[in-house]
């Protein structure tokens, strides 16, 4: 039971990091927050692995740490260094409005989750609410921000939300599938980084 309670703490930290991401206009901080968020996700998976004693989840923990906590933020930072931008992100709506909107999305996702998920299915309470909220806020980040990097961050946030849902209602997807998904994610980040570089070069020329 203590495992479950600690796992809830990690889930909450995921949501807190997403809300902070909405409130902060700095790209570097956003990438750091993404790394932190993935680490929390990995710890959540680890708690589940200890709780259920499932090898599948241990494997999931390891590949999450490798791909999401280390590799993807590393490449994003590398791209950021090459592009040489760390100014404030332009947004279509102001930050307080965006944050309040994120809160209302959480409320909405709580309503949906209450309709669908009955108590006791998930590992840790309110995981489904949080993952749905993270999902919606990630989509909001993609829509409301103009900078290319923050669209990537939004996309990655959506992906984290899905991973959270996958590891909460089930004991993780089969490892084969999970590996494929993470590999695809990684390659898509690489491609997007290449595109950012090319777009910057084109804009400069």
């Amino acid at each position: 039971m203590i495992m479950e309670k600690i796992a809830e703490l990690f889930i909450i930290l995921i949501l807190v990091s997403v809300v902070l991401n909405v409130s902060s206009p700095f790209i570097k901080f956003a990438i750091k927050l993404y790394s932190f968020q993935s680490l929390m996700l990995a710890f959540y998976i680890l708690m589940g692995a200890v709780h259920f004693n499932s090898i599948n989840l241990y494997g999931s923990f390891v590949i999450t740490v490798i791909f999401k906590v280390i590799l993807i933020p590393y490449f994003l930072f590398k791209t950021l260094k090459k592009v040489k931008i760390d100014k404030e992100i332009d947004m279509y709506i102001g930050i307080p409005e965006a944050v309040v909107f994120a809160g209302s999305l959480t409320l909405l996702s709580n309503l949906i989750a209450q309709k669908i998920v009955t108590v006791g299915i998930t590992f840790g309470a309110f995981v489904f609410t949080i993952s749905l909220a993270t999902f919606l806020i990630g989509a909001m980040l993609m829509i409301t921000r103009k900078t290319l990097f923050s669209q990537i961050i939004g996309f990655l946030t959506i992906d984290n939300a899905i991973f959270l849902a996958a590891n909460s209602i089930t004991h993780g997807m089969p490892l084969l599938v999970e590996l494929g998904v993470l590999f695809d994610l990684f390659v898509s980040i690489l491609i997007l980084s290449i595109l950012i570089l090319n777009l910057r070069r084109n804009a400069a020329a």
Partner: protein
Amino acid sequence: MYELVLILPAAALIFSIFIDVLWMSYVQLIISTLVFLTVAAISLFFHSITVFFGGLFFVDYINLVILITVSVLELFVAFYSFGYVRTEIKHGLSKRKFKFYYFWKNLFIFSMMVSIMSNNLGIYWTGLEATTLATALLVSFNRTKESFEATWRYVIMCSAGIAIGLFAIVILYFTTSQVYGESLKSLSFINIMRAGSELDKNFLMLAFILALVGFGTKVGFAPMHNWLPDAHSQAPSPVSALLSGVLLNTALLGILRFYQINVSAGIYYPRYFLIGFGFFTILVSAFSIIKQTDYKRLFAFSSMENMGLIALGFGIGGIAVIGSLFQILFHALNKGALFLSSGNVLAVTHERKIEKIRNLSKNFPITGLMLLFGVMGISGMPPFAMFLGEIYIMFGVFKTNIWFGFLVFLLLIFIFAGLFSKILKMYIGVKDDENGRQNENRANSGTDKDNQDRGEIGVHPFMLYAPLILLLISSILLFYIPSPFLHIVKSASAEFGGKIIF
């Protein structure tokens, strides 16, 4: 035999890394022919669902239709690429670039095959995402600002959309894992269909909606279609043909799988979602076609319209399902012919704007005619097979609700008018010179060296005849549909609960 369909594209992928481009074009021809023959043999002797590669892959009637479509179009695209590579290299593009072209194209075909035939929904997802990534660098093949922007939009929107699809798969996995336990087994499509009504209906409902929105992004359903015209118009023409003709159908297959699962569990409402999205897509594309200035974007919107029509047909059910299944193949053939022949114009003139292209009947006699006939086909006019598909779908729609039928019909007429007004200007219109004076003589005088290069003469014959044969096949299919294919379509439509009335 079934394994060959996966092994051959993988072999082509490996060849494309090591072999020189000009040799590779021959290898590609051979392999595409072999794939086509394999698929043809499969469809000739196909009688029931077959599983291979340890249950990870399977062929049933529905994905067989798409498989046939892919193999046919791929064959012609291989022939076209043969000429395309030679023409472009002659015009000064580097060989290395075309090595990349073959590599990414084969990766794209391979991951599409994986995606289509996968029994496991997780593998389906992985394959579909891999197609996005493989085509990403093909879309930005021209390395211009517009193409990079189009690629950016394409990758970010499709990745996010497919991520939503992953959410659907996760929820489905959770639902089925209560029946089968947590293993690869409970992602297997055949197992899920077998579980049927044991599954939790609330979760299936959620999964379908998420899948429709998620994979629907990749199909190009209307509110999520922003990436489609850009990506399809910026890609090299053979890739555009593949993107429009088959990749959209591959994504649609995911939605159809979820639809099938819902139907097998006894939930029938998802058809309204399909109808709604399909109709809205037709509506949006109808109004977008009218104001297009770029002919490749025009065809991209037309594919959107056709995907909407196909989704509408699947939603209506009954005879419209048969129409939709026909439409999957026929649309691929016709749209392939259009994109390939527009590629000829683009390869010579390097001009994307409709207003800059005039008098195709003189400069491009074969290509121009093909564009005209292709547009006739794509808007459902009789000498071409799409007439059959559309008439079945419209028959179903009219049977359901006559007013709704009139509405859809009106939109189709709208699209027809939009397409024709543009293409006729390109075909027989006369270019204005700087003074606004019509000068017909300079364009077809033939003495100017520039004008000779601007004509069809420099184009490789394969580039001319591949789309022509595609159109011919499309025309023949209206009058004679091979009985094995008819059988496959009938059986596939039976899986959606369609009644077969002929």
